[in-house]
């Protein structure tokens, strides 16, 4: 069931999205070799509360922390721990904020110190995949047009997209309809209507697309142990354009 938002609800979602983006920026500043992911989680929670929001992931289906921090071969849902970041690591920060009853959800993958050219390229391709996915999200097109834009680009670059996890509608709940897979042929699924809000989130693996979930029942890693990157934005569909709610102006 897809919930359409009114203009004033979208304004509230914009505030939630902006708060999410500001909180993520705070965490990003703290990324450096030697910091533990648990310390980053604490910074994230403090930043979210400072924005007047509530960490959306904390306790969500039992998730034990405020943000998902996924290092290197961890695809998504990494649980903050005492692991220290090392130069050359890449770390995905997936952050969700509840503000005024609405969810903002976004993710970015950052380099820790200097990273290898192949890690650099993975980040660039995943970012471009997100941009292409957002460009395909227009009123009147269909959900799988987004999927196709992402998959066709990523695979042309020699990488693979994760199939087990998908983007999603978002609003008063974190996961609403419709699911937004990062794969599939175009022209299928629900038509995008003004008032729809989607979290578009390509998860791109350097090697094969196969993943497994560890015994903590959260941490998803690549089976081949190669790197994985994740970028996500929450976007609102307007009649004539698509607004990215989780990017700060300028």
């Amino acid at each position: 069931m897809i919930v359409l938002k009114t203009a004033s609800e979208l304004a509230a979602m914009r505030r939630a999205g902006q708060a999410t983006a500001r909180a993520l920026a705070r965490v990003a500043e703290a990324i450096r070799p030697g910091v533990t992911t648990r310390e980053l989680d604490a910074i994230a929670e403090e930043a979210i509360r400072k924005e007047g929001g509530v960490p959306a992931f904390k306790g969500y289906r039992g998730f034990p922390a405020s943000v998902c921090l996924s290092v290197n071969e961890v695809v998504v849902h990494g649980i903050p721990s005492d692991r220290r970041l090392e130069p050359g690591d890449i770390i995905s920060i997936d952050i969700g904020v509840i503000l005024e009853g609405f969810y903002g959800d976004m993710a970015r993958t950052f380099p820790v110190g200097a990273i290898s050219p192949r890690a650099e390229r993975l980040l660039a391709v995943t970012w471009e995949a997100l941009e292409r996915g957002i460009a395909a999200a227009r009123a009147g097109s269909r959900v799988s047009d987004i999927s196709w834009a992402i998959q066709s680009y990523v695979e042309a670059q020699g990488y693979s997209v994760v199939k087990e996890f998908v983007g999603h509608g978002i609003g008063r709940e974190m996961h609403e309809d419709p699911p937004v897979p990062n794969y599939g042929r175009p022209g299928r699924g629900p038509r995008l209507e003004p008032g729809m809000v989607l979290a578009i989130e390509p998860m791109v693996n350097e090697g094969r697309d196969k993943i497994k979930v560890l015994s903590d029942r959260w941490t998803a890693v690549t089976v081949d142990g190669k790197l994985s990157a994740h970028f996500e934005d929450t976007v609102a569909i307007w009649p004539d354009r698509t607004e990215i709610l989780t990017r700060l102006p300028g």
Partner: protein
Amino acid sequence: MPDEAGMPGRVNPTRDKQIERARVRVGQVVTSRAGRDAGRSYLVVGWREDGRVLVADGESRSVKRPKPKNVRHLWVHSMWYTDPVWVADDRHVREALARFRRDQEAEDKAGDAREGRATENGTPRARKGGERDGRESGDD
């Protein structure tokens, strides 16, 4: 945070139906997004045993003879326009839907001026009028 992908053909249709049922409540305004009535707005008046929603507009579809719709063929609007106890009365259904339409028009005009963003004219809302190609094939 990504959602877990549903298995092809859905993992647990009964559970999915229960979830959708819990989300669409009697008294809520919905807009049809598929079928010959696509674009029409209704009030939810009940549920059928087969899991379909019963909707009425107090005009072509009275509360005595509501139309069954698949939940997945409906847009659900989050604002409430009536107390659920009144949905048994066609006149109240018509009035609630009239309030809903007035709001939609007002949002069209004022929506973004109120948010102080002059560049954003036009308000997101369900498309009016029969948009037949919005129908999803193989869904029903």
